[in-house]
């Protein structure tokens, strides 16, 4: 009796094992996080996508309002909107400045900090401090520094641009990119510092034996050695950078001189929340997300190829 029933029992259990994996308790452990993701990210995003196909606006509960279906109308309007063009241009400029500087500078700083350096704790602290402070707090200082009568303008004397940096249509977005780069650098230095720990010492020994100076061994050992970190840094910088909002909002007063420093997320805020056209804002949002994912995918592909 036991021999007959045990065989199909074991088979079924194995089938279950295959279906849910070795440690089904993993589902339980990860459940709170999945519910959180579903409620806080997935649902609002799904709702936003839904809204993007309608001439949607938020109404009081129980109010009877008409929200006509517009299909791809919002998307067409977004692609034709000159402000959206400016915003996309600004993201491109921003990323062109922010990503290379971030990668190069944070790797350089991490490499420098990794060696024997006195006051290492002070340096780590110094580079990390901008990252941990709120933009609300720091923006005031930048205003002070870069205004027409501020320190930087005084130091530059006749070289200072007129109109001053933050209100100069050509400079405004550059200032924002520099500001964000400065602020985020500490975090990426940290990532690189960690990656540097994983490079085997033997490789450096070998390079030195081969007669390579510090620059050669940096290029030949360090840079390839931190490749995975570089991929991560680039992708993170792109994703975070494309979503910049606080800086145009605070540093250049809600869109900057002549709307020259607007960002896509600032437009989402303006159209969606200030003007109550969330359907249109959602269309911009979806386009942004698709764009960012595409760029990240390309980066990852290119960087991981070699």
């Amino acid at each position, binding site marked *: 009796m036991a021999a007959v029933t045990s065989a199909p029992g074991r088979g079924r259990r194995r089938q279950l094992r295959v279906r*849910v994996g070795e440690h089904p308790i993993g589902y339980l452990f990860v459940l709170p996080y999945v519910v959180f993701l*579903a409620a806080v990210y997935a649902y609002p995003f799904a709702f936003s996508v839904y809204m993007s196909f309608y001439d949607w606006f938020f109404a009081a509960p129980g109010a009877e309002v008409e929200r006509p279906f517009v299909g791809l109308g919002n998307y067409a309007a977004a692609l034709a909107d000159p402000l959206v063009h400016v915003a996309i241009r600004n993201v491109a400029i921003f990323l062109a400045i922010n990503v290379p500087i971030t990668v190069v500078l944070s790797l350089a700083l991490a490499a420098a900090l990794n060696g024997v350096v006195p006051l290492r704790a002070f340096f780590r602290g110094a580079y990390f401090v901008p990252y941990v402070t709120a933009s609300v707090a720091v923006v005031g200082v930048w205003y002070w520094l870069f205004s027409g009568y501020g320190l930087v303008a005084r130091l530059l004397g006749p070289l200072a641009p007129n109109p001053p940096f933050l209100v100069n249509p050509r400079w405004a977005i550059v200032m924002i990119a520099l500001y964000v780069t400065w602020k985020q650098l500490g975090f990426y230095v940290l990532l690189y510092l960690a990656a540097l720990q994983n490079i085997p010492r033997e490789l450096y020994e070998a390079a030195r034996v081969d007669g390579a100076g510090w620059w050669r061994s940096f290029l030949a050992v360090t840079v390839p050695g931190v490749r995975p970190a570089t991929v991560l840094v680039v992708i993170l910088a792109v994703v975070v950078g494309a979503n910049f909002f606080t800086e145009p909002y605070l540093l250049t007063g809600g869109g900057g001189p*002549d709307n020259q420093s607007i960002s896509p997320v600032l437009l989402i805020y303006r159209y969606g929340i200030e003007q109550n056209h969330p359907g249109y804002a959602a269309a911009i949002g979806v386009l942004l997300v698709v764009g960012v994912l595409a760029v990240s995918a390309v980066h990852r592909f290119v960087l991981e190829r070699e």
Partner: protein
Amino acid sequence: MSIGRMLGGVAAGALLLTACGGTGGPSPSAGGHGPIEIWYSNNQQEVAWGKAMVAAWNQQHPGEKVTGEEIPAGKSSEEVIGAAITAGTTPCLIYNTAPAAVPQFQKQGGLVDLSKFPDGNSFIESRTGDRARQYRSPNGDYFQMPWKTNPVMIFYNKDVFQKAGLDPEHPQLQTYEQFLGTAQQVVAKGGVRAAIWPAPTSEFFQSWFDFYPLFIAQSGGKQLIESGQPQFDGPTGLAVAQFWRQLYARGLAPREAAQGDAFGTGQAAMAIVGPWAIAAYTNVHWGVVPVPTQNGMPADQIHTFSDEKSVAMYSSCRHRATAWDFLKFTMSKSNDGKLLEMTGQMPMRTDLPGTYPSYFQTHPAYTLFAQQAARTVEVPNVPNSIEIWQEFRNAYAASVINGSQSIDQAFREAAAKIKQLAG
């Protein structure tokens, strides 16, 4: 299909259902009496007034208790209210409803039609008189009650003017030419960074404190749009824009935003603002004149922007009868008088100097404001009002502040877009 995925899907689906159901929130029936909540701005003096009102009412009406709450009065107050409407968390009354936001709130179904109260129209119109007409919605009803106005005028710093060699009691600020000349002199010799420092930023409401007051004055009281037709792209609007362009081009008004209040901290010689700002000008010997016009006008004919705040009743309100009674209570003659005394802002009442003679005797400087308050113009009550002002501001910033476009072209293009938006 993994269990994790299934669970995620179920959770998301359940949440989607609850959100789309929209059955939350109290049903908007014209309810009766009971406790209510109100919000007022976090301006110090208004809070004091608000608390006094609430205390006085609660004493007489223990069964209809009013609870007051402050909300931020700054640029994001409309967003806060809009979000609250969507969530159904608005109070019965908000003593800080901007007329420009009323069309949007109305579209959201968030406001109560005050004309539906039996004495709605009569109370509003008998208190405010002719000006009340500007606060009607397109269908002719009142969805807001005009409350207080801060007529925008030109403040000037008497000490700075004296230092620059100008007469502090009779400044030459009536015509555009005079104004520009005075501005030039005051910057050259008065020791200030700017003659006048309106905010050069692109928020939709900034035009209410540079272009709009002068346009209203120059056009003899026209709104930005009238009967669906933009009014600003004609010769009047262009003249006003040209004047401001001169100020920016000659460096008399900076293109960067000021840190804090420029006039109050002595960085600017003049300010274009209403009497609520006086509380910040304790260190300044200020004088007040009406806004300039192209060729000068007698002061008692000049109109200006009202910078008005209304009170609205919101559809989430359960005890509307109490809310209406409280509303009328706070706008009685004596409570309007308290508002005047405690905040220095002008209630939207007819004939202020006549109604409160003792106040204006002890505060002669405010008489000017009271007189000006009789000639204020509001933003047009049209659909997509905020978007319209944003479009206008974009055009103004590009052509007037930054000079990157010709004023003619920018205004023409904006007018075409705005005409469409106004419906």
